[in-house]
């Protein structure tokens, strides 16, 4: 099995395009050898989520340092609201309504970070923030927080709510026997990271970033794009709904009339 894995990953490495993209503000080498098993993931009518596998080799000959793999979805604006009671105070009967909205100008729509031991033992707090190795570090506040509100509470709530939806994930140890999802290191510096992509994860362009940390410092990294795209009927329907939305509405109504007509004819009493 192990030999097969090594052979497979080497084959992938040879075939992998040299698409190392430069990330801003760093003197770190972009030469970490890594590749993804699925560069394109297709969403058809039977789609129910997927797995993304990142292979690679630790370039350090003596195998020093720790590999961290991050799978990122697109950065999008997000809003977090806090429920409040109306009327507030001691009135015995009140409604809980959404209030006090706080906007984030960008927050990752999907975020998974994989390491073979807790991230804080691998990277310094400064590095975690600088290289955005945590979803909270990637979320940028846009609007002022309402008086009495705590910005970090809103940030924590955003991360917690997205984590509950399976959109933010942390793998802090190698997968156990029978588990799928996590970072496994093999002898010879080979590693394999598997991320579970839930069906509700947005359909967009993703990036798999691989980092090598040693003594809390980033040594090397690699960025690989992964495309998730609709195909077939799913694609046709979605394109129609977004590009020619009035026609899409008319088609839906026509189908509704057809269904109603069909039922009336089928069940007509003689």
């Amino acid at each position: 099995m192990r030999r097969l894995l090594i052979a497979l990953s080497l084959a992938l490495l040879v075939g992998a395009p040299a698409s190392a993209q430069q990330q801003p503000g760093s003197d770190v080498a972009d030469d970490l050898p890594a590749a993804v098993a699925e560069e394109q993931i297709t969403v058809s009518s039977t789609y129910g989520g997927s797995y993304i596998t990142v292979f690679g080799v630790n370039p350090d000959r003596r195998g020093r340092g720790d590999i961290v793999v991050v799978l990122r979805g697109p950065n999008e604006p997000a809003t977090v609201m806090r429920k409040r009671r109306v009327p507030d105070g001691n009135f015995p009967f009140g409604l809980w309504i959404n209030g006090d909205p706080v906007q984030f100008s960008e927050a990752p729509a999907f975020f998974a970070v994989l390491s073979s031991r807790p991230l804080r033992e691998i990277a310094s707090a400064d590095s975690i923030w600088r290289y955005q190795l945590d979803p909270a570090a990637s979320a940028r506040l846009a609007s002022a927080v309402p008086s009495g509100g705590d910005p970090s509470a809103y940030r924590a709530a955003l991360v917690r709510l997205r984590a509950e939806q399976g959109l933010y994930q942390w793998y802090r140890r190698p997968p156990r026997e029978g588990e799928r999802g996590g970072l496994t290191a093999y002898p010879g510096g080979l590693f394999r990271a598997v991320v579970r992509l839930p069906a509700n994860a947005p359909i967009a362009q993703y990036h798999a970033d691989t980092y090598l940390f040693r003594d809390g410092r980033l040594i090397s990294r690699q960025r690989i794009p992964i495309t998730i795209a609709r195909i077939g009927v799913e694609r046709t329907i979605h394109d129609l709904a977004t590009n020619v939305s009035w026609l899409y509405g008319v088609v839906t109504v026509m189908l509704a009339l057809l269904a109603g007509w069909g039922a009336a004819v089928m069940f007509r009493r003689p």
Partner: protein
Amino acid sequence: MIYLPIAEMPVAVLLIFLVSGTVGFVSGLVGVGGGFIMTPALLFLGVPAPVAVATGASQIAATSFSGIMTQTRRRSVDWRMGLLLSLGGVLGSSAGVALFERLLRLGQLDLLVSILYLLLLSSVGFLMVRESYRFWRGHPQKSVSVLRRPLKTVAHTLPFRLRFPRSGLYISVLPPLGIGFTIGAISAIMGIGGGFILIPAMIYLLRMPTNVVIGTSQFQVLVISSLIVVLQSIATQTVDLVLALLLMAGGVVGAQIGARVGAGIKAEYVRGILGALLMAASIKFLFDLVIPPAELYVLGGGLM
């Protein structure tokens, strides 16, 4: 399992068929539209509220068209009244969709939908249970056709009067326009047809004869729900075609079976049970509004 392209979630096909079929069956059995059971059922299955409301409208269009096919053969549609109600409905549903989109962006759509459903389900449920209880006690309510209608309503005194030959009426155009507007707005926000509000309004407020009431109301519901599907497609892009097809198929077949079965049993008892269920569902909406939430923060605002 099938992946919904707009809701962006996988659903079990059989489960959706089962739910839409059951809702259709109940609506055929009791003789109600079913939108006000379908939308909460979809919410319960985890379909996002905007998708549930917008997509439900397409299923209502299918059901009402199926009904109209039967009614036109009996010449029981007052087209002039239907057009007037629809005109009001066009304005109302446009306003409703605009409000829907605005509330969705503000993150307050769920609140309005919950409050409206709380009021609707509790009042309809109460009326059904009361009617069933009276029947059980041996004091059945006189059927609508012989119910004493007020001779003169506000519709007969307002200006801009028009003749409605099929209904035998000479009334002002303002009340039909107003009724149409209200139903259109409620339909757009709640994902219901509104027949069970429209029909009493037509009988008691407009004094329309009962033989044209059902066909005419179905005509208005068809126009409004079709318009809502198109408007929601443009404004919020929350109409899911795949979900709509599943709902139509299940709902239409269920309704026909329900109507067959309903012919053989006492509808009053079924209504009593349904009314109790609706009241129970309304209590759930009430609890969600008044119980202090375990999670204070919610993701929201923006479209989806």
